[in-house]
Each structure stands twice: as C-alpha cells, then as structure tokens.
C-alpha cells in the first residue's frame, strides 16, 4: 500500500475506532460506577423512608410497585415472618441481609439493602442488570456521534490529501514537459513546504544538467571548428595533388597530404582522449601502479620525435614510484607533456623528465629549454584549443587540456614554472597512494 491517501484513511479509521472504543469503555465504566453509587443511595433512602412509615403505622400498605426500577421491597417482622412483598410475581429473594449485599437469584445478580428496624427487617433489592443497561445506554450515546463523524472525517481527509497533492501533480506535469533543451528551473514558490525540498533538489539537478549540456555543446562546437583546420588542409592537398603540373609537385602534394591525414588522425585521437579523461566520468580501473615504468614508456613513445627534432630527451627516475591511478590515462598524460615539451624546444635543446617518490606522494617533472610560457598565460594554456601566441606548432591545442583533466581525475596538482636556465617546467604531484 503506497498511497498517502489510503494510508491516511486507514490510519484515521483505526484511530477513530480506537478512540470510540476507548470512549465507550470509559463512559460505560464511569456511568456504571456512578449509577451504582446513585442506586445504592436510592436503595438505602427507600429503606429508610419505609422504616419511618412502618414504624409510624406498622400495618399500612407500603407504596406498591416502584415502576421500571424493578425494585423489590420485602419486610420481615422480628420473628422472621415476611410481612410484605412488593411484587409477588418476581422470583423470591429469601435471604435476609443487613447493609448492602450482592445476591444471586436464579442466576441473576441482584443488589440488596437490608435495614434493621425495631419491628423487623426491611429489604430493598434491585437487579444489577438495570445498572448495566443504563451504563450501556450512556456509552452508546457517546459512540454513535463519533461513528457518524467517521465518514465525514474520511471525506475531509480525501479532499485535503487531493488538494495537498495537487501541487505535486502540477510539478510532475511541469517536469514532464522538460527535455534537454528546456532545463529552466521549475516554479517552487507556491509548493507546500513538504514538497519544496524535492522541487529545490530538482532545480539544482536541472542547473547541473544545464551546465553539463552547455559544456557538451561548447565542446562539440569547438571540436567541430578545430576539425575544420585539418580537413581544410586535407582538401587543399588533395586538390593540389589532382592538379599537380609535374612529378615533383605531385610528390610534394602527396607528402603533405600524408601529413594532413596524420594531423586529422592526431586531432581525432586527442579529442577521444579528452572525452575519456573527463573528470565527470566515473573513474575506471584505479589500481596501484608504478609511475616510473609508465614514464619509461611515455618517454620512449616520444623518442622518435625527439630524434627528428634533434632534441635531447632524458629520463631520471627512482626504480619504482607508487601511485594509485589508471595506467592508460597516466601514459597519455606523460606522453602529452613530453610531446609538448619536445615540440616547443628548439633543435639542440633538451627535455628532462624526472619521476620520484616524495613525502607527499609522487612527483612527475618535465623540464624543457623551449621559450616557456609567460606567467599571465599559464592559466589559459589548460583551456581546450588554446595555442601559444608565438606557437608555430600546428598541434591539436588539446594536449594540456587532456593533461589537466587526467590530473584532476587523479587528484594530482599541476604547476607550471620557469625551468632553471629558461624553458618551461611542468610538475605533476600525485597524492600518496592509499
């Protein structure tokens, strides 16, 4: 049963039933108690008044029947002879008692009061049933209005619940109209305070979604624009290949076409790497790994480029450097850093990679003898598709953005600084592995 209305109705019915039962019981008990005292008093008063009458005129007929009250009056003389019985038709009570007593006559309970007089004994008796009937009547008078009230209360509950849940339904239909393009917050002012937290959380979720979608759109738009450059180069070289006037021009166009294809592939790979290293994504296989081993591979990947560019590439590392990370992502991070360093270092320069365990965790350092990055630009170089002003390299513009995303995922800290003796020094500090 998962309906608020049904729950409320059931709870209320049970409550009303319990209250009615309790009220009836209490009323019954109290009325019974009170009538007992009252009737006992009456019995005694009757007996006393009879004594006066009898003593004044011993043979006078006592008033007959006491009506509905079912009283039975008996008078015995001092010899024990019954002198009077008010209702001869009734079962006889042959016991003579003094004071109050509970008697049983043919299975029925009676209450009796016996009074010693100068001439004998006067006894007034009444069936206990009379008192019970009175008490039951009183209890019924209490319970009936309560029970009559129940359907009214249930209707009121049903109405209130429907009214109370109305805003929830409005909210639901408002949310239903939402899609990726209309993520405006839902109206939460006129909602009951019980529902408002839900609406507020919903709005926060919508805002986060909005931001995520906007970021996605920007990324796709940026990516599409960036793809245009290698595609333009591809198309140009293809057309030049088609119209090459001689064999030399044809060969050159072919070579450049190959470069353009390689560049388009590189950009596609970098875009994919960036998408995969999105910090919002669930982290994949994080495991204990050796940073130095991955650094060796990353440096080896860039060796060919370094040779072509006549840049001296070196790695200095402790035997094992423990971090917790995704090996493939870390390899991409190292490759991007080293590749960048090699590309921006003029021939004859050198790129040093250092990898060490530190007290706080692990350190990866890439130092080059290139032009460095002015302090003012050091924040922006991590933006997607950002290129240095003096950069003559046609890279993807994504390398450092990828590095940053991967570092963020590993809670690693990146610092850009001037390398001693000019050039750029990139430090990536990994936290201590758990």
């Amino acid at each position, binding site marked *: 049963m998962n309906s608020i209305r049904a729950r409320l109705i059931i709870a209320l019915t049970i409550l009303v039933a319990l209250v009615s039962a309790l009220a009836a019981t209490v009323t019954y008990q109290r009325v019974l108690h009170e009538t007992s005292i009252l009737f006992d008093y009456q019995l005694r008063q009757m007996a006393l008044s009879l004594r006066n009458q009898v003593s004044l005129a011993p043979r006078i007929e006592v008033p007959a029947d006491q009506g509905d009250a079912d009283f039975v009056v008996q008078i015995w003389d001092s010899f024990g002879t019954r002198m009077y019985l008010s209702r001869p038709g009734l079962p006889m009570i042959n016991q003579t008692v003094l004071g109050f007593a509970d008697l049983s006559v043919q299975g029925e309970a009676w209450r009796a009061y016996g009074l010693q007089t100068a001439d004998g004994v006067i006894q007034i008796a009444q069936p206990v049933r009379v008192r019970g009937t009175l008490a039951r009547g009183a209890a019924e008078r209490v319970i009936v209005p309560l029970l009559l009230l129940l359907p009214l209360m249930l209707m009121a509950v049903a109405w209130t619940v429907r009214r109370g849940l109305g805003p929830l339904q409005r909210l639901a239909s408002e949310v239903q109209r939402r899609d990726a393009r209309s993520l405006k917050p839902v109206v939460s002012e006129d909602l009951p305070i019980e529902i408002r937290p839900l609406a507020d959380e919903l709005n926060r979720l919508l805002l986060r979604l909005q931001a995520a979608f906007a970021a996605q759109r920007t990324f796709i738009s940026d990516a599409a*624009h*960036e793809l*245009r*450059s*290698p*595609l*333009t*180069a*591809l*198309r*140009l*070289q293809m*057309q*030049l290949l088609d*119209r090459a*006037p001689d064999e030399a*021009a044809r060969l*050159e*166009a072919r070579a*450049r076409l190959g*470069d*353009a294809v390689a*560049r388009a592939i590189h950009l596609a790979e970098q875009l994919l790497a960036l998408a995969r290293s999105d910090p919002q994504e669930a982290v994949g296989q994080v495991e204990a790994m050796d940073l130095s081993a991955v650094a060796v591979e990353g440096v080896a990947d860039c060796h060919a480029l370094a040779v072509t560019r006549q840049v001296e590439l070196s790695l200095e590392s402790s035997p094992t450097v423990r971090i917790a990370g995704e090996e493939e992502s870390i390899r991409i991070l190292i490759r991007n850093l080293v590749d960048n360093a090699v590309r921006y270092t003029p021939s004859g320069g050198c790129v040093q990679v250092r990898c060490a365990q530190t007290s706080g965790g692990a350190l990866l350092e890439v130092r080059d003898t290139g032009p460095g990055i002015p302090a003012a630009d050091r924040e922006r170089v991590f933006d997607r598709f950002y*290129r*240095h*002003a*003096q*950069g*003559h390299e*046609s890279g993807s513009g994504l390398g450092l953005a990828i590095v940053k995303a991967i570092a963020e995922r590993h809670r690693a800290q990146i610092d850009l600084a001037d390398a001693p003796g000019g050039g750029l020094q990139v430090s990536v500090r990994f936290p201590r592995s758990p």
Partner: protein
Amino acid sequence: MRVLLIEDDEMIASGLQTGLRQAGYAADWMRDGRSATAALQSTTYDVVLLDLGLPQRHGLEILRELRRGGNSIPVIIVTARDERENRIAGLDAGADDYIVKPFDLDELMARVRSVLRRAAGRGDPRITHGDLCLDPATRTVEQRGIPVRLSAHEYSVLEALLQRPGTVLSRAQLEDRLYGWDEPIGSNAVEVYVHSLRRKLGSEVIKTMRGVGYFVPKP
C-alpha cells in the same frame, strides 16, 4: 597579381600558397597579425586572404585598421567560423567576401577573381583590349578570336598591364606581381617576358617608356 595570405595554420597556408602560385599569383604568407600589418604597409597587394583566429591580433582588427587607413584593397575572409554573426561582422568590418573552411580551392580562386574584377571596376569577367581578350578564369588569351599560348608568367605580365591601360608599371612593380618574397627572381626576367609577349602578340601591344617601365596604350 600579388596575394597576401594571413593564416596561422602552416599546413593550410603552405597548401594555399602552392595553389595560388600554380594559378599564377605571387603569394606571400604572414602567420600573425603584427607581421601582416607590417607587410601591408611595405608592399602593394592586389588581394588579401585573411584568417580571423590569429595570434597577437585578431583578423577583424587588422581589417578595420586597413579600412580606417583608407586602403580599399579587396579582402576575402577565410575562416572556420561559420556562424551568421561572424559572417555579418566580417563583411561589415570591410571584407569583400567571406569563405568558410574547409573550402574548395576552385571556389576560392573564383572568389579571388571576382573581387579582383570588381576592384578593377569591370563587370565582364574577361578583359578585352583592342583585338585582345583575356579570360582570368582559364588564364587564356585570344587575339582576333584565335587562342594564343602564353606561359604563366607571360600571362601575369600581360594581365597586370591590361588591368589599367595607360598606366606605366616599372620592372620592380611587375616583379612584385610575379614573385612572392621567397621566390627567386631571374635578373632580367621581366624583359624576357615582355620580349616574348611582343613576339607572340605583335610589337605594338606593349610599349616601353624608357627608364620608367612598360604600359599598354589606351585603346
């Protein structure tokens, strides 16, 4: 015709340069805004191909400055930015045409010819002068309806002179039209081309103003 190519992407720029040179244009390439501004001040160009996303100075800034300085040289914006706002901003900043990357080389060449034609104040795509008729689209020449075979450089010299009949162009000016900065120039190349043109078209077509240069007389 001398073209200034302002483009920060080396691959695109070198491809364009090759394409322009194959089509008979002298093409200089500048990769950033500052050197582009310097080149525009030092050299006379016939058309500018301008990328917008440049390091140091934005393309539109260069364009606006050029126009404010009273330079009416034809400018074609060549960019990856294809949004309506960008196109409007580019044309309103003084561009004569706007082409989006990745473009078709043939289309770009046609647009270059189109802005050059309009800059010369002509509607007819062909240049006619007396019994001569040049078609810049195919780079062919006819004399009295008979095709004349010219080399690419011979055509360029003839075209330059026919652009403004009566105007004298010096040897240096003609060399400017023929060669980009990084192309080697033969010592008396222009004299050789003029000689060859006179041989093919008749000696009366190109006149010499001694000590100044060459011109095509007004018809």
